[in-house]
């Protein structure tokens, strides 16, 4: 498989004036194949969001190299989509206009983008809210709109930063299944940051565990179980075994039993 997203020995140290530098990412090497679905788990503040910002070209690495599709990442790219930890909707645009923002900024053909957006909104359960404004939606609905926005320009690589953290358990499950469906249909390369071990096991081909700050990769687990997987998959022995392995790694990452910290 071609490496779609490749980190080689990447370092990121935040330098804020008048304060001690913060080493957020330390010597991360990770090669993600084209169309691979990778989940990243790790303690809070360990540099997961920073890793995504590096791949997005929003932060400049202080060491190492990052490649997407063979090109060095120096600035943001058109073929990368992102879902931030918070929805980040523009309050003066309707939900449809918000979702179409990538099409506007990237100057994509209007009609096609609109059709795609309407389909995706329906898929995310936001039908009938196209003309509503963000403040008229619940937090979970806003987050779903944020996810639709990341998909609307059909990016090759999708970076997701705890996209379902704000959703209730049921919506979370349906959205996970939908994401899996979209991924199977369109085969995007997805990097999915989460604190939820079940979510990682359900969705990912591969689960990367990061240590506490400075973030390094402490384990890299394969999850070759066949798809499509549904919620029942989580109660199968293979899934339980994998969850156990992730827990163990996280225990090491935190230095205390992760069971007490991660739901």
């Amino acid at each position: 498989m071609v490496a779609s997203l490749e980190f080689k020995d990447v370092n990121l140290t935040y330098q804020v004036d008048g304060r001690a530098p913060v080493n957020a990412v330390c010597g991360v090497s990770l090669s993600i194949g084209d169309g691979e679905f990778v989940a990243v788990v790790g303690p809070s503040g360990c540099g997961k969001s920073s890793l995504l910002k590096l791949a997005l070209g929003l932060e400049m690495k202080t060491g190492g190299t990052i490649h997407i599709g063979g090109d060095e990442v120096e600035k943001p790219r058109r073929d990368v989509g992102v879902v931030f930890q918070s929805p980040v909707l523009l309050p003066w645009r309707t939900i449809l206009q918000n979702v179409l923002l990538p099409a506007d900024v990237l100057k994509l053909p209007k009609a096609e983008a609109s059709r795609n957006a309407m389909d995706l909104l329906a898929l995310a359960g936001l039908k009938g809210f196209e003309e509503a404004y963000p403040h008229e939606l619940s937090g979970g609905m806003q987050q779903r709109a944020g996810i639709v926005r990341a998909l609307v320009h059909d990016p090759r690589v999708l970076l997701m930063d705890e996209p379902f953290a704000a959703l209730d358990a049921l919506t979370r499950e349906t959205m996970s299944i939908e994401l899996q469906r979209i991924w199977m249909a369109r085969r995007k390369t997805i990097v999915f940051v989460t604190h939820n071990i079940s979510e990682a096991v359900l969705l990912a081909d591969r689960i990367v565990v990061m240590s506490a700050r400075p973030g390094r990769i402490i384990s890299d687990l394969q999850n070759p179980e066949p798809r499509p997987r549904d919620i029942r998959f989580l109660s199968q022995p293979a899934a339980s075994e994998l969850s156990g392995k992730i827990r163990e790694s996280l225990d090491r990452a935190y230095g205390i039993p992760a069971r007490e910290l991660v739901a």
Partner: protein
Amino acid sequence: MALQSKIEPSLSEGEIEAARPLRSARFVRRLRPVVEVLASVVVVMSVWEMVIRFFDVQPFIFPAPSAVLASLWSGLASGKYIFALGVTLSEILIGCTVGTVAGLLIAAMMVSSKLAHRVVYPWIVGVQTIPKVAIAPLMLVWFGFGIESKILIVALTSMFPVMVNTIAGLSSTDRDQVALLRALCGSRLQVLRYVQLPAALPYIFAGLNTAIVLAVIAAIVGEFVGSRAGIGFLILQANFALDLAAVFALLTLLGALGVTLSSCVRMVENRVCFWNRRN
């Protein structure tokens, strides 16, 4: 409100019927402050009239409201006040437009260049701290007794609040929103267009609201210092003639002008910054 009207088409007939009395209740609620203000005006005027009659106050000391109203009516009917209002209003509107455009441009310049901010800002503040009354005679020397000198004074006055608020607005942008635009390969101009400018609009309107009120004051100050027409000019004339009823009539007109202009700005603001009303 916006949500209400959007959801309505999906309501059944019965539900729409049920919503109707609610709407008329809302109308009454909205009308209430207007009625209250009008009532207070009537009360104050009646007391005022009674006091003047009871103590037999001379009209050149303090006019009765009836005399003020009569003066206002004759001034309006003869067209004299209408013409003066036209002159003062043009000074305010043209001056405020020039000031606003200048304020926006200077703010944009200062936000985009730190050097410009460091060098230009002290100058602007320096000029701003000089009272406009002190500058007005200079403007008269340079631009004459006509409308141009007043426009300049108004522009100079209204520029500042617009500029200060625009700078605050353009620098207030949400970091995540900017990050989103940058992640989408947005250029600086696109960040300005899609994020910074809309986010700055409520601030700009706050500045405009201050500017329009200050503009009324500035126009009258300019006319006081030297003019041939306008409300300020007529006030001075009436004052010299000890026609206090006319002075009061003109002051009333001026107050109404200020309130109208300010409400117009607020109305446009509510239209343009609809998303800002609730949160």
